[in-house]
């Protein structure tokens, strides 16, 4: 006979409708898992789990979800039942939480006398457990734990229900037909990242082999076996976690420049790694017990604890260096590349084979492998007319790599943002000739990267200008004469581009005269000169414009 039954009936009569207690069904692990990693330090995890549901109301718990789960994003589908509520209450089982959650519970206290080894066991109740120590009640009265100098070992009867070894998501399901079902659980979780990197190898002066690599990172403590892994390239609108969004690096819309966003991502990634390394260092071999005593003699708690440790022969768990935990695995091979598909307005790259994505692991895979992509290696220098007074400068232009992302140029693939590093053959083997960030580039867009400052190539720029106030409207009319000598001390011919920047403060701009053909490039005037090896050439032009002075 259940002695609580009459009371239960009484309460049922008093209170509002109380549903029958649901039966708990625990799904210990996922059958299969898919991880979609985004650039902004999170991933979408989608799990399928097979569960046997009884016909009554069910509390269905999913064990082993990722600890960084964003509860607001959790979706449980295909249960075939009405979902009453979903709960995520992960409080990790630690020595401290074990004490804190055991307030009011009975424990067994074992005291060992240091000299004689005599053991005394007494039942006790935990009266209070705070960061500043634990108070227990024994048959003698109230005492502070670990303050008497006698080695004391607390034995707990059970782990409080609130504490879990593994993070758990649970849902309450209404009654429905009993049977086996395959349910889908999906959620966003922090602590994942990916980026792309490009390696370009010049094979001929205007041809480059281009490989693109995905670098995936799992910074969480969860390992995924045989996971379907994909990454999403593109810029998602994301809100700050403080505003209940997904982004740990602030609202994505608040970043004006892609470079700024990149820097913040990299910093955030570094911070996560540092925090993890620190957390590992903080653990110094002592369990994190709630510790604190009243003031006493010359002994400090740590030392008395140390003595206990020595007498009882328990040594600290020698933690390894943080770096040992991470593993770098390169899985790229020519034969097996990530497969691209378009997802909404983004690009999705899928690793076509199931892969083990371990906790704290970095993994790389090839997603682009193109041979003989047409490129142009040239040198460039920009001039802004607003700076013209009288210029007599010696400059060295910038080395640029231009490519057209088209099929006809041997490319024509979406290029997710990443750093391109260019290598070229040299007399002593391969040389690194510079790197630059390649921003998200769609098919048919053009790319221009700045790789380095030029060596053995200089510009001698001489400009003199006359300004005259225009009678009618008062804008300054300027006539500038430019003479730019390009000296190529290299043993190879080079292409040099000189750009004359135009913008809204320059009106009625006009090239009056030039000794080379004048081109337009992104609104600017431009000239391109092919300068043979070990020679010099000179560009001269005369520019007329009016400077706008806004009132």
């Amino acid at each position, binding site marked *: 006979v259940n002695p*609580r039954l009459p*009371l239960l009936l009484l309460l049922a009569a008093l*209170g*509002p*409708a109380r*549903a029958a207690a649901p039966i708990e069904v625990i799904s210990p692990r996922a059958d299969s898992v898919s991880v979609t990693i985004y650039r902004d330090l999170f991933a*979408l995890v989608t799990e399928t789990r097979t569960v046997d549901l009884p016909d009554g109301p069910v509390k269905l718990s999913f064990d082993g979800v990722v600890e960084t789960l964003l*509860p*607001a*994003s*959790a*979706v449980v589908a295909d249960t075939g039942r009405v979902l*009453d*509520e979903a*709960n995520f209450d992960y*409080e990790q089982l630690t020595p401290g939480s074990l004490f804190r959650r055991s307030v*009011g519970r009975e424990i067994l206290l074992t005291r060992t*006398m*240091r000299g004689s080894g*005599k053991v005394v066991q007494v039942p006790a109740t935990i009266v*209070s457990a*705070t960061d*500043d*120590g634990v108070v227990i009640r024994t048959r003698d*009265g*109230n*005492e*502070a734990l670990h303050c*008497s*100098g*006698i080695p004391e070992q607390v034995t707990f009867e059970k782990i409080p229900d609130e504490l879990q070894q593994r993070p758990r998501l649970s849902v309450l399901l209404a009654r429905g037909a009993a049977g086996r079902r395959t349910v889908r659980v999906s959620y*966003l979780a922090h602590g994942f990242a990916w980026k792309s990197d490009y390696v370009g190898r010049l094979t001929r002066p205007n041809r480059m082999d281009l490989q693109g690599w995905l670098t995936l990172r799992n910074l969480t403590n969860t390992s995924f076996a045989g996971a379907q892994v994909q990454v999403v390239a*593109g*810029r*998602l*609108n*994301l*809100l700050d976690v403080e*505003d209940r969004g*997904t982004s740990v690096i602030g609202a994505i819309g608040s970043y004006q420049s892609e470079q700024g966003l990149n820097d913040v991502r990299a910093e955030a990634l570094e911070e996560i790694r540092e925090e993890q390394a620190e957390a590992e260092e903080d653990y110094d071999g002592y369990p994190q017990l709630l510790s*604190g*005593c*009243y*003031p006493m*003699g010359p*002994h400090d708690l740590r030392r008395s604890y140390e003595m206990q440790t020595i007498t009882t022969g328990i040594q600290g768990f020698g933690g390894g260096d943080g770096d040992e935990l991470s593993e770098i695995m390169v899985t790229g091979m020519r034969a097996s590349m990530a497969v691209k598909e*378009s*997802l*909404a*307005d*983004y690009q999705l790259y899928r690793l076509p084979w199931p892969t083990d994505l371990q906790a704290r692991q970095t993994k790389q895979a090839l997603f682009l492998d193109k041979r003989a992509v047409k490129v142009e290696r040239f040198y460039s220098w920009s001039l802004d007319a607003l700076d013209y007074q009288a210029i007599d400068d010696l400059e060295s232009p910038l080395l640029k790599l231009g490519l057209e992302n088209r099929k006809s140029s041997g490319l024509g693939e979406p290029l997710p943002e990443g750093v391109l590093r260019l290598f070229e053959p040299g007399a002593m083997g391969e040389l690194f000739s510079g790197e630059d960030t390649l921003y998200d580039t*769609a098919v*048919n*867009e053009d790319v221009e990267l700045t790789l380095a400052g030029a060596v053995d190539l200089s510009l001698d720029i001489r400009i003199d200008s006359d300004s005259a106030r225009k009678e009618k*409207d008062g*804008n300054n009319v300027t006539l500038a004469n430019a003479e730019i000598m390009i000296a190529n001390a290299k043993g190879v011919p080079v292409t040099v581009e000189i750009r004359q920047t135009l913008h*809204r403060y320059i009106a009625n701009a006009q090239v009056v005269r030039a000794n080379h053909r004048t081109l337009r490039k*992104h*609104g600017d005037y431009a000239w391109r000169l092919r300068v043979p090896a070990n020679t010099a050439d000179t560009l001269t032009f005369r520019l007329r414009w009016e400077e*706008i002075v806004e009132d």
Partner: protein
Amino acid sequence: MRRILWCLAMVPAAALAADTPADREISLTIYNKGIALIEHVRQISAPAGRQRIEFAGVSAQIAPETVSFIAPSVELIEQNFDYDLLTPAKLMEKAVGSKVRLIRVNPATGAETAEVAEVLSTVGGTVLRIGTRIEVLREDSLPARVIFDKVPDNLRAQPTLSVLVNASKPVNETARLTYLSRGLDWNADYVAVFDEAKGESSMQGWITLQNQSGTTFVNARAQLVAGDVNLVNGEEGYWEYQRQRRNANQRAVGVESTARAQLGDYYLYPIKQLTTIANNQTKQVSFLDAAGVKTSKGYEVTFHGFESRDQPESAEVRMRFANSTAAGLGEQLPSGVVRVYVRDARGQPQFVGEDHIGHTSAGSELALKIGDAFDVSVLPTLVATRPVNRRSYEYDMSYLLRNARSTPVVVTLRQDGLWRQNEVLKESVKGRRTDADSFAWDITVPANGASSLTVTLRNSW
């Protein structure tokens, strides 16, 4: 002074520690401003006279000044909220001037010697008087247990509310305790799965409740209130209010009413059955489930000045829908975050972006920003600037719109940030004025192709 014992109602053994009194009923009304109104109904039985009643298990973030205690036959004298936590150091400190028992243990033999000691001081060490001797506790570092016979009333394992009452006769009745508490909050979270081909989406709304109050509420009746309650709590309240009011994604305001229960200017979302809200728990309850909501996608680009770019500007992707009955979603939407999913080639929903919505009345039109299109972009070029006079200029702009998708798209291109007087002198595609200082053009860009727009604008002040 006697203590009253609570009549213990049965609670699931899992949720509470053994000596925590239980509520017969507990009701929570949670506002989405991090505040909740909590009502405990408890059975009290007490003899006549002046006595103290303790309410363990109240929210640790209780606002004591908002407490109201109602029991018909008792008179309230005073109420206290004690949050002096019981720690070894506090226990010793409160024992100054009183007696403790000191049990010394011989480390070799384990033999115990008990003495009574008076605690004299706890500053910089514990000083004890034992008989006529004065000693510092454990100066010799040898083991010594200190036993306290009782724990002072105001030292607690958890923050506790107590009321001092006077009962004219023995009572056995129901008492109500209500108060406001911080640490409880809720927000709406929406999951929209968008099917572009069908031009519709399925939309689920979840109330996400967070309990950071430090207390677990067992079998509570809960309701959630949507609306902007003004709270006098310094600048934070005001700005929070402003932030929630701002609703840039709303394109048209709705005027439809719904069947949703209302309380003044607030909407109520009751949770159907009794629910246990554990401390540190995030709980989600469904309140909206709609399929076949008419949804379209749009591309938008806005330029704020006249300039050339080397890098094209990606088009913003917006998801447009209305929460009207006609569009398949006749519900007002409390403020929250909408997360949008699109199915990949294998049919699995993938996350594609999120946006915030404010409290949105039914029948409104929304255009949520999802992200930037990888494959749709606009490259602006300032071709020429011509002054008309010192207060008036003409700009020739040319825009190259590219689409690397396999379907044609329409891009709404906006040029804004214009001066007081402005007009379009020439345009290659017919556009429209969108407001006093902006114009817009809808440009169709073919699949895997490009379109261009050239515009001459006069801008004056």
